[in-house]
């Protein structure tokens, strides 16, 4: 089981963490909400919570609660630009369908 970052994503995360001045790494997860069932959680992490799995990719620590991990195992987090918009993108092999807006998904 693992979740990874692309090199670009890792560099961005490191920059954002440095700018924030504190934080242990990144928290990834899912929430059951949205028009298509689930939505991704992407937050700064100030340390592990109980039941977290901790991964490390490209020198960045990734915290994921065990429940979420089932849905996002194998995900590669990328950072991309689309027109004027830029941000992180979950490349999740478990994702079967996303809603039109792409903000929530089903597995």
């Amino acid at each position, binding site marked *: 089981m693992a979740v990874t970052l692309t090199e670009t994503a890792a560099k*961005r*995360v490191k*920059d*954002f963490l440095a*700018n*924030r001045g504190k934080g242990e790494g*990144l*928290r990834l997860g899912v*929430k059951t*909400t*949205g*028009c298509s069932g689930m*939505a*991704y*959680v*992407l*937050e*700064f*992490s*100030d340390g592990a919570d109980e039941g977290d799995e901790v991964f490390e990719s490209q020198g960045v620590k990734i915290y994921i609660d065990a429940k979420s991990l089932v849905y996002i195992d194998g995900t590669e987090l990328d950072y*991309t630009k*689309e*027109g*004027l*918009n*830029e*941000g*992180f*993108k*979950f490349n999740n092999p478990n994702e079967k369908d*996303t*809603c039109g*807006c*792409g*903000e*929530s998904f089903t597995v």
Partner: protein
Amino acid sequence: MALLQISEPGQSTKPHEHRLAVGIDLGTTNSLVATVRSGVADTLPDDKDDHILPSVVHYLADGEPLVGSEAKKHATTDPLNTISSIKRLMGRGVLDLKHIGTRLPYEFAESDSSVPRIKTAAGEKSPVEVSADILRVLKDRAERTLGDELNGAVITVPAYFDDAQRQATKDAAKLAGMHVMRLLNEPTAAAVAYGLDQGGEGVIAVYDLGGGTFDISILRLNRGVFEVMSTAGDTALGGDDFDHAIAKWIMQQAKISDDAGHHQLRRLLRDACAAKEALTSADTAELKIELENGEYWEGVLSKEIFNQLVDPLIQKTIITSRRALRDAKVTADEVEAVVMVGGSTRVPRVREKIGEFFGKQPLVNIDPDKVVAIGAAIQADVLVGNKPDDELLLLDVIPLSLGLETMGNLVEKIIPRNTTIPVARAQDFTTFKDGQTAMTIHVVQGERELVSDCRSLGKFTLHEIPPMVAGAARIRVTFQVDADGLLSVMAREETTGVESGIQIKPSYGLTDSEIENMLRDSITYAEEDVAARNLREQQVEADRVIEAIQVAMQQDGQLLSEQERTGIDSAVERLANVRNGNDHNLIKQTIDEVNNLTTEFAARRMDQSIKKALSGQNVNEI
């Protein structure tokens, strides 16, 4: 697949419920929009990767107006339809145009409205509409960048902007379909960008040298509140003057005559500006100037000569800064941080000289063109709710006291300046005359004691006050200033609940220097003001006494002997004479004399009214 940003722990949002907020620096020359993404605040570029949007709008007979660089291209070919520097007209009335308008090359429409309207190919446009066109472009840029609709914006305004100018800015945002969460003072935004609001307390100087204007603001941070202690500036001093100084030097060196053609002068200015920019990182700048006869003049501008050329200009800003410090009653040593804003603060000599003056290294690591927008974005991020609750919310203060006119042309201050906003204050007033059924509330702004020395913001009348004896009615006047510094005033007669009120949207603005002067005058004339207030108060009291006695004489004159009556008459006459003088002590003394003289009369009237009330009634009924 939507692109995501990193949230603070526990602050992730649901899909379609992202709390998107931007900060906007709506400038005279240039505007910017910034936002916080993954914890980083930065300005947003357009498709061509330009962060700066020139605040220029070009109106076309048909179709959407052009905004920014595209509009700027038409400035020389179609000046009447190409509007720039519209910020100078925000919140100003037609009457104000007389002293700002001479420099504005637009055609103004004749109208009865107090708001100036500019004639363009797309119809008449008010300053609010022109600003809305600029804001619309920034909003669109932000929404395309963030991938969703904005929840709100923080827009910055100069610290010296008055209520009318702030309201106009809010109106423009509304017209552009934006929700303004807060207007923020520009120097405050710059200080926030550097995180100085997290520092606790201290005095901060914000030195803002743009292309054409200079502003210095002295702020005091106290318990998370920025108080603007003083502002000063020069609306005709900036980087453009540096270019002119260099161009003049080139003309001397290359022996170009003063009456050189327009084209030649423009080219010279462009070369001068390039040389100035080159000297930011190099010690010399090569110059190759094409002369009108087709030949070239070549020369070198060294850093030393450049410094000599601009030193007198920098010195001017230092003199203004010194004045701002004096107004704020602080010394340069007491200033804990100096924030540099505006493109011209990139000139190393400016940093050096300002550093010397304040005795400390100025803060320069944030791009001086972007720093105000970035501070606004940080504040917007907090206001929209992307930060944990314990994060301090920055508060602002009102720049000038708000009050109302009372008898004798005196100002009663309801909310003193530097009160943190939002705020609501109420005070009870009463009627001055018997049977008075209406009261006019005249709302004024300023620090002076007399209404004529303050600025009138608006008037309204509370009608249907039940007739009562003077002083019996209780009228509660409430002043409320919302988070954007906008004022609403309500008056309510407490026994009947009759209400009336206004939202202050004054038609005429003050110029920057007028606000400055108002603040300075209040200090300069403090003594005279106290004297004037004392005098007016005694005069009002004298008038009240005279009127009361006259009414009493008319009603109950028969209670007095001829001799008593003459005595009182002559005393009242004496008081009326003294009242017109300017010795408040003498007036007070005379009032006391009259009061003593009429004590017996008052007692007799009292007895009589009691007798009247009791006559024909059984003691048991009382």
